[in-house]
C-alpha cells in the first residue's frame, strides 16, 4: 500500500493519493525532497511577507485596542488625548520595526541566473524565512501587548494624571519585546545572499 502510494506520488498520478502519501511513515525520507524542491526565492519572499504582514497586523490591532479606549476616555477628560497619542505611536513603532526588517531582508534578494541552485541559496532561503517568522510573530504579540497596556494607560490617565508616566514605563518594556525580534531577525538574515550581492 505504502509502496504503491509512494510510486503513485512520485509519478504524480492522482492528487488524493499524493496528499495521503505525505502522512505515511514511509514518506519521512522524502520530506527533505519536499523542501528541496521548493524554490529558495519562495521561502525568502514568504519570510519578507510575514515580517511586514504580521508586524502590521500586530500594530493595527494594538492601535484599535488603544484607540477605542483613548477616544472614549477623552470624552470626559480631553486633556489626555494628545498625551496618550504616545501609546498609539508605540504601536505604530511595531509596524516600523516590521518594515525596517522587511527592507533589510529584501536587499538580500535579487535576481541572477542560477542563483537559486547553490547551497548558499538554500541557506539564504531558510534564513530569510526564519527571520520573517521571528520578526513577524514577535512584533504581532508585541503590538497586542503595547495595545492592551496603552488602553489601560489611557483609562488610568483619565482618572489620575500622575499615573501616566508610570504606565508609560510598562508600555516601553512591552515595546522592547518587538525590538528583540528585530535584532534576532537582522542577525539571522545578515549572512543570507540570494543573488543580491555584487
Amino acid at each position, binding site marked *: 500500500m505504502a509502496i504503491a502510494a509512494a510510486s503513485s506520488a512520485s509519478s504524480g498520478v492522482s492528487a488524493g493519493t499524493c496528499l495521503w502519501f505525505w502522512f505515511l511513515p514511509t514518506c519521512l525520507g522524502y520530506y527533505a525532497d519536499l523542501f528541496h524542491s521548493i524554490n529558495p526565492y519562495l521561502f525568502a519572499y514568504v519570510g519578507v511577507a510575514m515580517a511586514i504582514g504580521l508586524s502590521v497586523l500586530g500594530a493595527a490591532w494594538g492601535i484599535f*485596542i488603544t484607540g*477605542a479606549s*483613548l477616544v*472614549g476616555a477623552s*470624552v*470626559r*477628560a480631553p486633556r489626555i488625548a494628545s498625551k496618550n497619542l504616545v501609546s498609539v505611536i508605540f504601536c505604530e513603532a511595531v509596524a516600523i520595526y516590521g518594515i525596517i526588517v522587511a527592507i533589510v531582508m529584501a536587499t538580500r534578494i535579487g535576481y541572477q541566473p542560477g542563483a537559486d541552485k547553490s547551497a548558499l541559496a538554500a541557506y539564504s532561503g531558510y534564513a530569510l524565512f526564519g527571520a520573517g517568522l521571528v520578526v513577524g510573530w514577535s512584533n504581532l504579540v508585541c503590538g497586542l501587548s503595547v495595545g492592551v497596556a496603552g*488602553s489601560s494607560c*489611557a*483609562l488610568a490617565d483619565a482618572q489620575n494624571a500622575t499615573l501616566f508616566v508610570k504606565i508609560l514605563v510598562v508600555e516601553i518594556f512591552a515595546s522592547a519585546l518587538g525590538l528583540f525580534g528585530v535584532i534576532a531577525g537582522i542577525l539571522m538574515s545578515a549572512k543570507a545572499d540570494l543573488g543580491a550581492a555584487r
Partner: protein
Amino acid sequence: MEMLTFNASDGYLEAMMRGLRASILTASEYNNIMQCETTEDIRMTLNGTDYAPYLQNEPVPLQTAALVTRLTERIVSDFAGIRSSAYEPLATFLDYLTYPYMIDNLVLLITGALRNRELSDLIDKCHPLGMFEGMGTLSIVATPEELYRDVIVDTPLASYFVDCVSIQDLSELNIEIIRNLLYKAYLEDFADLCARRIGGITAQVMAPVLGFEAGRRIVNITLNSLGTDLTKEQRAALFPHVPNSLDAEIVHLLARADDEPAVAVALDRSPVFRALFQRAADHPERSLEDEFFEHEVKLLREAFDQQFHYGVFYAYFRLREQEVRNLVWLAECIAQRQRAHLGKVVNIFG
C-alpha cells in the same frame, strides 16, 4: 481573549463609562453638602459637578421631589447615550439593567388596575428607565386580565410572567409575591446571561455582585415573611437561585426559619452576612438595609478594578442610583433640620 477583542465594539463605551465614573461624588463633596444650611445651598454645591445643567432651571427653593426627578433624569440621559451606541451583546446586557425598573413599574400598574385607578396618572409615577412599549396605550386598559393580555405579553418581561404567574394570580393579595417571583426569574436569567451567554471576565466580575444581590433578597424575603401567613414552601419558592450566592445549606435553614434568632443562626455560617448582621446589631442607628447598601457599594467599586468587561456598566448605574439615594437623604435631612442623621450616607469613592 477579551483583551484582544473586547475593544473592537465596546472599548469606546467602556472608556466613556469610566470617564463618567470619575464624576461620581466623592467624600469631600459629600462633606461640603453636609455643611449646607438649606436646599438652595445644596444646589450651589452641586453646581460644581455634572449635575449643574440638570438643576439650573429648577425654581427656588429647590424641592426634594424635584431633586429626585432631576437626578434620575441625569441617570436616564447617561443610560440613553450609552444604550444608543451599544452593540450586541452589550445592548442585551444594558437592556437587562432596565428590567428591574420595568418589574417595579408593571407591579405599580397592576396594583393600580386592581384598585381601578386611572392608569395614565400612574405612568407619571413610573421610573423612566423602566418604560416599555405599549405604556402609552395603557389608559384604555381597564382590567388586570386585559393588562396582562394586551401589554405584558409585548414586554421583555413576558417570559418571566409565563414561568411564574398565571392570570388568576393577579389579585391584590399576591402582588408582592408576584413582584418577588418576577425578580427571582429576572435575577436567575441575568446571572445566566452573564455566566453563560457573555462569559469571560464579565462572568467573573458579575458573579459576586449578583450572588450578593440574590443573598440579600433571600434574607429580606425571609425577614419580611416572618410572622405573616406565607407558608414555608411559598417562601422557599421565592428565593432566587444564583451561583455564588448563599450556600444551599444556609438557604435551606432560612427557608425553615421561624423567627429572627433562627435567621441569625443560619446566617452565622456565611462570613459576609454574619459580619453585616453583627455590624447592624452593634450600631443601633444603622439598619441592616444600610449595611447591605454599603457592602453592595464595596462590591460594585471592585468591578472597576478590571478592564474589558461589562460589569462597569452595571456598577456605574447602580452606584449612581446609590448616589441619588444619598443626595435625597441629605436633602431631606437638611430640609427638615435633622442634622444628626446626616452621617447615614454611603460614601461611594473615598
